[in-house]
């Protein structure tokens, strides 16, 4: 019983999270460099990948997704059952303690989720558990979660790092954002804002002591500098490597570049509320105009070519989707453009100033201009970008969705469902038929059924082409040779519990 619909988030593209290990060979420490600092360390109060990298080492969720198989397995939970579609009875593992000594039990789970859903607390990821109606403590190690309608993606949601269980004592008496307390393999030591976060091993970890003694999360804004620091031994681990760095990393014998096909999807989006982007012919022409094979090839293996919106690593993918969509055919594109006079105006392409999007945009722009579509690019900061896309202030744009839960409905619902017009549905796609399929995929607990609904919705969207999928992500990490045992999950997250230095 494992599907997870969880929320996903638009990919910032730059928020690289990596871990690093300490330098000296037997020295069991690790230094990881990320381009920015974590806003906070509380799973309840944060909603970003940098924070989640730390959170995943300090806290644990009830369930987790197996990095290899993609299956959802119990973690802090022992087992679960569904007496009915709206009830989840979850048995918890026993004898686990939070870092502050507070016992982990059903009360802690109830406290965590209730706090998470408390409108006063305004947890940014509260939507993850939105269908939850009540959480009850049945006995010390059993919780009962009731939903108001069947929630197909419940387990995926419970395996999301934002649904990590926190120490109720610590949250009541202190600030988890500054001073995180969980059950995970590493304990929080210190945080110098803007510079580094230090964790140390939790010697009492319930699965046994981790090998690493200490882990440092260091902020290094420039990736190029971070790689230099790997070469000088100041950093052991980075992740989210982009294509421009691969050859340098691969050229270095003492650095391992780990790649794994992942869940993110990156696409060019049309503003469906504006002329002529709302014209299917226009979108078709542009889809034909972009040589995605050449583009993906230029990513040096850091992208997967697919016509499907729901990517190959995402629940709900169906190979038949590859036959849909519009292949590279500049002649056809030119013809459509000429027939409709699309080439007479200049289009406004809004691009967030992050490497990956700039790269897509530059290539797309050049290829569009070859078929007679004139595009003016505006590169802006992420914050302004969010504002402007929310206001529909663009013709074309580039976006990504990392899909942390790896579930197709958590891609299609936020990004393309009519409910989310004006917020996460930035291309303003609205199709009744599609909407219905997506809702069904969310409210069904039968995973096979869900898969069918998703494939159908996916096919519908591909045909309507509100997006031109550029590539599906390959998650990456680079570690120095001596780091062993790092496992990347397709969502880009990783755990350091089993990592060691040689």
């Amino acid at each position, binding site marked *: 019983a494992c599907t997870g619909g969880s*929320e996903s*988030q*638009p990919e910032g593209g730059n928020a690289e999270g990596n871990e690093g290990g300490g330098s000296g060979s037997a020295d069991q420490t690790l230094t990881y*460099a990320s381009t*920015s600092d974590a*806003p*906070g360390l509380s799973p309840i109060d944060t*909603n*970003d990948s940098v924070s989640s990298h730390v959170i995943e080492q300090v806290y644990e969720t009830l369930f987790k997704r197996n990095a290899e198989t993609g299956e959802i397995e119990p973690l802090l939970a022992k087992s679960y059952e569904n007496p009915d579609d709206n009830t989840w009875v979850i048995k918890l593992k026993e004898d686990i303690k939070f870092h502050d000594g507070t016992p982990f039990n059903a009360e802690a789970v109830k406290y965590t989720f209730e706090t998470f859903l408390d409108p006063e607390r*305004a947890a*940014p990821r509260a*939507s993850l558990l939105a269908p939850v109606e009540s959480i009850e403590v049945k006995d010390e190690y059993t919780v009962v979660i009731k939903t108001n309608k069947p929630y197909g993606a419940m387990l995926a949601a419970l395996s999301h790092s934002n649904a990590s269980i926190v120490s109720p004592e610590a949250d009541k008496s202190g600030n988890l*954002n500054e001073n995180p307390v969980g059950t995970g393999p590493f304990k929080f030591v210190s945080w*110098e*804002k*803007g*510079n580094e976060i230090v964790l140390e091993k939790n010697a009492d970890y319930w699965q046994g002591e981790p090998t690493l003694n200490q882990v440092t999360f*260091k*902020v*290094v*804004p*420039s990736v*190029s*500098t*971070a790689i*230099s*620091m790997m*070469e*000088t031994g*100041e950093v052991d681990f980075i992740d989210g490597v982009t294509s421009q760095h691969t050859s340098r990393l691969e050229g270095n014998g003492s650095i391992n570049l780990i790649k794994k096909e992942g869940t993110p999807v990156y696409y060019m989006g049309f503003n469906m509320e504006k002329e002529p982007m709302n014209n299917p012919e226009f979108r078709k022409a542009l889809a034909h105009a972009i040589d995605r094979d050449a583009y993906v090839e230029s990513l040096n293996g850091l992208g997967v070519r697919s016509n499907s919106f729901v990517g190959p690593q995402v629940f709900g993918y169906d190979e038949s989707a590859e036959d849909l969509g519009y292949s590279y055919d500049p002649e056809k594109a030119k013809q459509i453009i000429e027939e409709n006079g699309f080439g007479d105006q200049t289009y406004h392409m809004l691009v967030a100033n992050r490497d990956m999007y700039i790269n897509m945009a530059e290539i797309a722009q050049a290829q569009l201009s070859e078929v007679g579509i004139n595009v003016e690019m505006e590169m802006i*900061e*992420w*914050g*302004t970008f*969010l*504002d*402007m896309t*929310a206001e529909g202030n663009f013709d074309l744009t580039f976006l990504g969705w990392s899909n942390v839960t790896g579930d197709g409905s958590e891609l299609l619902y*936020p990004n393309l469902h009519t409910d*989310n017009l*004006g*917020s*996460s549905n*930035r291309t303003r796609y609205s199709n009744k038929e599609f909407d219905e399929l997506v809702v069904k995929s969310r409210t069904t607990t039968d995973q096979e059924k869900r898969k069918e609904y998703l494939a159908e919705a996916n096919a519908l969207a591909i045909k309507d082409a509100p997006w031109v999928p550029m590539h599906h992500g390959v998650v990456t990490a680079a570690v120095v040779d001596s780091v062993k045992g790092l496992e990347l999950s397709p969502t880009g997250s990783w755990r350091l519990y089993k990592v060691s230095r040689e």
Partner: protein
Amino acid sequence: MINLIISRLVQMFFLLLGISFIVFMSMHFAPGDPARIIGGPTANESDIENIRASLGLNRPILVQYWDYLVGVLQGDLGFSYQSNESVNQAIATRFPNTLNLAIASMIVAVIIGVVAGIVSALKQNTWWDVFTTTGALAGISIPNFWLGTILILIFAVNLQWFPAGGLSAPFWTLQGMKELALPAITLGTGSAALIARMTRSSMLEVIRSDFVRTARAKGVKEKVVVFVHCMRNAMIPVITVIGMNFGFLLGGTIITEQVFAINGVGRLMIDAIADRDFPMVQGSVLLVASLFVIVNLIVDIVYAFIDPRISYD
């Protein structure tokens, strides 16, 4: 002197008032809504309204400014929208790094600049002069970030003499100095070049002046003529340049901190601007501006020590 200090501080007060007003207003009217950034891409309009309300962004702007001002006058720069960190705290932890960097690069700049300037003035029209002049011009012409990256590749990655980035050890330790070396050189080069040029021309002017001829007519040794009689006079305009340059250096830290992974105010500032983290932007801008004013005040005081003709009473 006391008068000067008081009047400058009064002036600084009004200056900061002006700056805070301009920054406040312009940030508020700039595109990009902090609430939306905090809310992230999934937030809908009502979420964003809630966030705006919780940040107090929905009040009339002048009321917001007034509240901010009252806070600042009580020494409270507010809290970051983004991380809820206290701005005072955030600046306090990062400022020492920036200050170390700025001072270290100033030292680099002054030493290199003054020595090069004096050499080229004394050896005017020799190839020493051509060499230092050209070098100084090249120094001005190199983009900061480019130089930084190249220095990292050569001295950190290839030669392994210095670390590639970061600033953690205190500056008085060997490790601290090693960590500061590359960023300080990166940042100091441009200023060194400017100081060298200024020193050269001011030295040349002084060397031709009447009182130097007087000193020679007294039979003073050439070394003493240059290093006692000329230096002090020649330094007067150079010191202005140093003061002015401090502003330039502070601007330069923005990029240098980025390149060398230094956790300083410069980086805080770019991040804050990008995040539309108004209180953080305000706080750091005010800090940098006051620093600039204070440095120039110090310059003026140093002036009075070097040049007895200047009195501030």
